[in-house]
């Protein structure tokens, strides 16, 4: 299965939580009201703003949709080769 890297820029995150609504298995808000990244609903190792996760095509689509739903474009998605998938450059 392909891997993608999900990064939240906490300086841009305002806690709108659209990402949580669209992809609750991949995002949740922490105690500072900022989005942190989950791996299929869990947080292996520790709480983090950046994760590389293995995903199906459907899951990848949902995560990109979540990134698109962010009002401050705080979420960036990269493919296995480091190419930025979202936001489009």
């Amino acid at each position, binding site marked *: 299965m392909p891997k993608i890297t999900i990064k939240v820029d906490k*300086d*841009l995150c*305002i*806690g*709108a*939580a*659209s990402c949580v*609504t669209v992809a609750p298995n991949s995002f*949740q*808000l922490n*105690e*500072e*009201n900022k989005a942190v990244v989950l791996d299929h609903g869990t947080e292996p190792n520790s709480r983090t703003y950046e994760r590389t996760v293995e995903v199906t095509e459907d899951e990848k689509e949902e995560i990109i949709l979540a990134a698109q*739903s962010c*009002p*401050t*474009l705080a979420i960036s998605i990269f493919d296995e080769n480091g190419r930025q998938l979202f936001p*489009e450059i």
Partner: protein
Amino acid sequence: MRYLIVGGGIAGTTAAEELRQLDPDSQIVLLSEESHRLYSRVLLPFYVSGQIEREKCFLKRPAWYAERGIEVKFGARAQRLDLTDRQVETSDGRSYPFDKLLITTGGAVTRPFFEHPAISYLRTIDDADRLFGLLQKPHERAGIIGGGFIAMDLVNLFAGRPFSTRLFLRREKFFSQAFDQEASDLLRFWIEESGLVVSPSVGEVKMTDQGPSLRLDFGEEEWGCSLLGVGVGIVPDLSWLAAAGIKVSVGVRVNEYLETNVPNVLAAGDVAEFFDLTAGRHRLVGNWTNAMLQARTAARTMAGERTIFSLVSSYTAKVGSRNIIFIGDTNRSTTVRVERRGSKEEDGLSDIFYRDGRPVGAVILNRTPDRRPLTEMIQSSIKKI
């Protein structure tokens, strides 16, 4: 199938995008009164503060629309709806026919004062450009009029600058629909801690033009300033819809499917006075997540998969480093019971609003850990309906 969307903000653009995916061969026309491609209003304060560049506010590349076969008309203001011939006429005399229509016109800022170079609002990117320009100039005194979300953005933008700022609250409280006096006093304390002075209950502020500056008169006092930020709410443009027979109240009245009283005419986003299943009543919601997700739901219904809109939406206003979080229905006047945790003395409080025996909303001031459990509490209460 001809889809016509009136309003090119996040709701209209999201609907266009979703419709293109669901109905690849259809005609999709998007009318936008503003002359810009889609940008995020939420990012405007980040641009004005210098945290990001202006270009980063835009969410779509110029070619995005054409790539998806979405015919977008910028600078097109809808003026007349003809439900017999099923077309919308714009102010430049053009007509746009449709089979299905979606209204996503949002609202325009309430402008209580005359036009003046020192005054700036913060709804559009044109407003942001103006405010950005004003902030490059030196000032001794500034003012803010307003007590809601935009006023908080203005507080964050003006605090810490080398000029004195006075905030005028026309009513008694900040966020007057959601807060009681204690919550408002706590917010006032934080704002004054950041260096601003708050003048509450000033009623209508009288303004006098003094060339490049303004003189504000309120009661016995006056405040001269060369920069005035105003955030006193938005008002939707409904008369052209009402004239055609669309049911309107404070917004375009729609059911839980976002359908108006007229078949194949829907509304979504800030303009939609929708039946909120959580709150158990019709209401207007003006936040980003609500606009975007309503648009997706409306598009699905229009493309043939009738879908109920159900969301406990939330939004955060930041004041300095503190969060004020609004979840669900936070209109105090329609709630029967309010449960409070914390207090002004504890520098943080949360209010949970109950109606018909269910939690329907919450407002959280500087108690961010309450967000998740209260959201879950409100979400699970829908299932009991």
